[in-house]
């Protein structure tokens, strides 16, 4: 199967947040009581009960004093996923056939290292300290269904499908910047932007933290190479010099 993904087009989004509700409904996530913070953006952040949300970006300009962008936020299902790289528990985070980064709460050990390693600040924790985030509706897409959020979206701002097809679609529609095509070996949620990603509140070049990359590429192999090196050196030393000859030392004293 080809890699599947979401295509997010903020210019088409009307901020109805049907996707937020649809996600809660499918995943049986409780609603959250929030406060009036002077904006209709709500809830304020992702949480263990909020896998996706529309971020409101207000960009008043002379030409358009009311310019509002609605940017859908969720797990990006990175091709090279920082969360999967660092996770110490096998099977806690895994990649589905469709390319989603899904998880198994029973295998998660609650160390929260994935939080540290995610370039998009996505993973959250439930009351049992287990990872909680968007899984691209792994249970739906494995049955050939569309993720709940995309299924609900009335404008086509959220679309699900074959990743290559969606990328082609976005380019054909003339979006100047297709975000996430190549970053992190390709994101599983690509964005059709008309402006620079910064405007939409996204980093220009998302990356897994250098400390994690260094650990993965250098320290991990060094940990057993060092051990093997010392073992080999000890054998060589033992053959070449043998145990310390104390008698000789004594003679000199």
């Amino acid at each position, binding site marked *: 199967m080809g890699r599947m993904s979401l295509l997010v087009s903020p210019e088409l989004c009307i901020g109805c947040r049907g996707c937020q509700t649809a996600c809660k409904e499918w995943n049986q996530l409780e609603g959250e009581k929030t406060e009036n913070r002077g904006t209709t953006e709500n809830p304020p952040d992702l949480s263990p009960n909020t896998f996706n949300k529309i971020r409101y970006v207000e960009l008043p300009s002379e030409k358009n004093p009311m310019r509002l962008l609605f940017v859908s936020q969720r797990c990006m299902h990175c091709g090279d996923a920082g969360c999967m790289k*660092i996770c*110490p*528990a*096998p099977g*806690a985070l895994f990649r589905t056939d469709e390319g989603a980064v899904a998880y198994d709460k029973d*295998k998660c*050990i*609650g*160390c*929260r*290292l994935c*939080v*540290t390693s995610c370039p998009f*600040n996505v993973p959250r924790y439930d009351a049992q300290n287990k990872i909680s985030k968007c899984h691209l509706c792994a249970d739906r897409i494995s049955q050939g269904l569309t993720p709940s959020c995309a299924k609900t979206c009335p404008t086509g701002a959220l679309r699900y499908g074959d990743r290559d097809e969606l990328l082609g679609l976005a380019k054909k529609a003339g979006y100047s910047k297709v975000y996430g095509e190549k970053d992190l070996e390709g994101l599983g949620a690509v964005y059709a932007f008309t402006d620079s990603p910064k405007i939409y509140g996204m980093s220009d070049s998302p990356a897994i*933290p250098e*400390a*994690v990359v*260094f*650990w993965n590429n250098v*320290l*991990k192999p*060094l*940990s*057993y190479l*060092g*051990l093997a*090196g*010392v*073992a080999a050196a*000890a054998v060589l*030393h*033992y053959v070449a*010099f043998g*145990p*310390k*000859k*104390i*008698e*000789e*030392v*004594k003679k*000199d*004293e």
Partner: protein
Amino acid sequence: MSNNMIKKVSGLEILVHWTMAISFFILVISGFGFMFHMEGVGSAFGGFEQMKTIHNWVGVVFAAALFLTIFHYLPVALKFTSDDAAWLSKAGGYLSKKAQLPPQDEINAGQKLLYIAVLVLGTAISVTGVIIWLRPDMANLNSAVLLSFLIHNISFVLFLIVIPVHIYMATLANPGTLRIMISGTVPVEWARKRHAKWVQKMGY
């Protein structure tokens, strides 16, 4: 104590040493299990979740033993003497079959280096381990957790070089040394060959 034996370390020091060594091995094995997703290691610890709990609490035991180790030799180990310079310049006599070393005191430069390395790496790995374990919820502290993760793993790699060297030195390379960490005593004649100055100070 019989006349031809000399006491090198106390019973408490022996207990502390083996507490530290055994906890160290449990931590290394579980650490490898996490790093390389070793399912066999995971099930030996009763699953990865339980392995995390064990790793965390054995880390506390290790840190406690490490703390007690501070009192063993710290002032001695921090004093760099001309004997140490001579010892180091001849690589402790380990790279030659006929190197001559000046008489040594209680511990030689190599032992001092091991001791200091264990204290420094042990402190680094323990402190960063606690930070990763009890990581604060606030996202703005992510960089502190990342730095801790980095230091924790660098200390791990260095430990895996230092400790195997130590084990080789304490066993195969120097037959008879292991007795120190089992009974605490060694034959006076054996000690005189390695720690002449110290044996003299002790009045033998």
